[in-house]
């Protein structure tokens, strides 16, 4: 790579931007998605806070937003991004869109993992006099922790993918780095560098996730 010196700082900057977007999305979107997923799980028929109407509303919202391809979503949410973040370009603006999109994706993954918790254990906790919130946070989540960690690891990979898309709308990060310095300058080795970096990131995340999940499952 002949122009390595000139793009070195951009490369490291891009890694930091990607990490910032992924970590922020996993924390903010992860928590919001957890709450939304808990809402979906607990309001379903026979759930701890069974409520047909709330469940239907949550379900419809998630079903509407989740399937929107992220590249469309990130532009469609533009006006809201402008209001909240004051701009529609740059890493912060992209991160906002990422957080919102991830919330809906994560909520389904959380719901799917929580429904696998043995209803008998939930009943046992209720029989001991635990209220619904108590049961959710001290029984349901701990019981589903292993699968939840794997679910979040899966989401990590999806979010890395989404950050690359955010690069297409000037969101920064490795995606934009690969497009601006690799694709548009016909510099294939820059593209390859971005790809390898992303592979390493994903591998590290998957390894960490697997290790934590194994610990939670004690297997």
């Amino acid at each position: 790579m002949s122009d390595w010196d000139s793009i070195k700082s951009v490369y490291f900057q891009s890694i930091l931007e990607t990490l910032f977007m992924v970590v922020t999305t996993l924390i903010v979107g992860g928590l919001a998605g957890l709450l939304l997923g808990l809402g979906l799980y607990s309001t379903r028929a026979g759930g701890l806070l069974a409520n047909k109407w709330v469940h239907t509303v949550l379900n419809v919202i998630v079903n509407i937003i989740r399937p929107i391809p992220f590249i469309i979503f990130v532009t469609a949410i533009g006006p809201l991004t402008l209001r909240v973040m004051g701009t529609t370009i740059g890493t912060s603006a992209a991160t906002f869109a990422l957080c919102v999109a991830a919330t809906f994706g994560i909520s389904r993954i959380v719901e799917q993992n929580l429904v696998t918790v043995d209803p008998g254990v939930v009943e046992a906790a209720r029989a001991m006099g635990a209220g619904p919130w108590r049961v959710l946070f001290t029984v349901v989540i701990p019981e589903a922790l292993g699968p939840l960690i794997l679910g979040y690891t899966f989401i990590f990979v999806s979010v890395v993918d989404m950050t690359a898309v955010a690069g297409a709308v000037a969101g920064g990060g490795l995606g934009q780095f690969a497009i601006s310095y690799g694709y548009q300058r016909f510099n294939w080795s820059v593209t390859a560098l971005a790809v390898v970096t992303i592979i390493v990131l994903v591998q590290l995340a998957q390894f960490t996730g697997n290790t934590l999940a194994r610990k939670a499952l004690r297997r």
Partner: protein
Amino acid sequence: MTTQIAFHNAGKVFQTSSGPVTALEKIDLEIDKGEIFAVIGYSGAGKSTLVRLINGLERVTQGTVFVNGIDITHLPEGKLRSVRREIGMIFQQFNLMRSKTVYGNIAYPLKLAKWSKADIQARVTELLSFVGLTSKAWVYPDQLSGGQKQRVGIARALATRPSVLLADESTSALDPETTQDVLALLRRVNEELGVTIVVITHEMEVVRAIADRVAVLDSGQLIEGGSVDEIFENPKAATTRRFVNTITHYDPEPGEIERLQAARPGATLVSIRSVDPAEFGRCLAVIGADSEVSFEIVRGGIVQVKTRSIGSFTVALDGPAGAVARAETSLREVAGLAEELTRGEHALDTPAPGRHELGEEPDAPIGAEK
């Protein structure tokens, strides 16, 4: 005896997508403080719903339920939680939290009840020793056998010193030997701690082994109830008789009598039921003393129920017709519940003393005096 749990005309209707389903109706039941009360029924009879009415996991749609003198029928969920802490519950599938150790499982209800850390530690240690699992405190439920899991379940249910323990098919997932261990533990819970136990089961052996009183639930209704002695001695409803028969084998299997008869064409089969083992001895003495009659015991058995031995046996009597009839008469004098099952060829022409028609209807009460 004070009443601890009372159902008055209680009913439960579930609203399902295919319309209302009646799970329980017209339940009138009083369970006394300190007793072991069993509810027996086939699956789908409504047993699990019935036991869940006691701690409000299910609410009645009709009638009332009292626990410790409190009408829990319309108690709001928040207040119900404090009632639930007075009632322990164990389950068929144990329902332990896999993410918590044995210690964590037993400590959970104590944390809910806001015990201090030191008190929790003392109590869990005490409970672990009570159920004999002291060495397993830091083990996860997945590493325990079924019997050990149920012991943890019992320790957890007893943690807050409840006055009532609900046992929902608590031994149905266990092998016979482990079942006996767990039943023995439940008996200790009842005797040493004075806890009232409500046992839900489909196994008459569980009733025989630990219950003081039993109620039979069939299709959502209580069809019969009484002390375990009474029910074993004189079951009335067909369902009750089937349950009792699983232990006493009073009623022969279909075709059993025919096979016994076919093997001894000349003999007359007479069945004797009793709640007094001495009576069996007297019966044998009577027929043994008759030199004209030979006899053979072809089926039967005696089981220990609470305070008594209850059982039945069937003898094949053979000899001249008059002698067999005479022997039958003497048997009836000695034993209250003697009856002829089939008549052998050798005795076909003699009128039997107070002959019963049997074997036509499978549910005909064997030994019931008409």
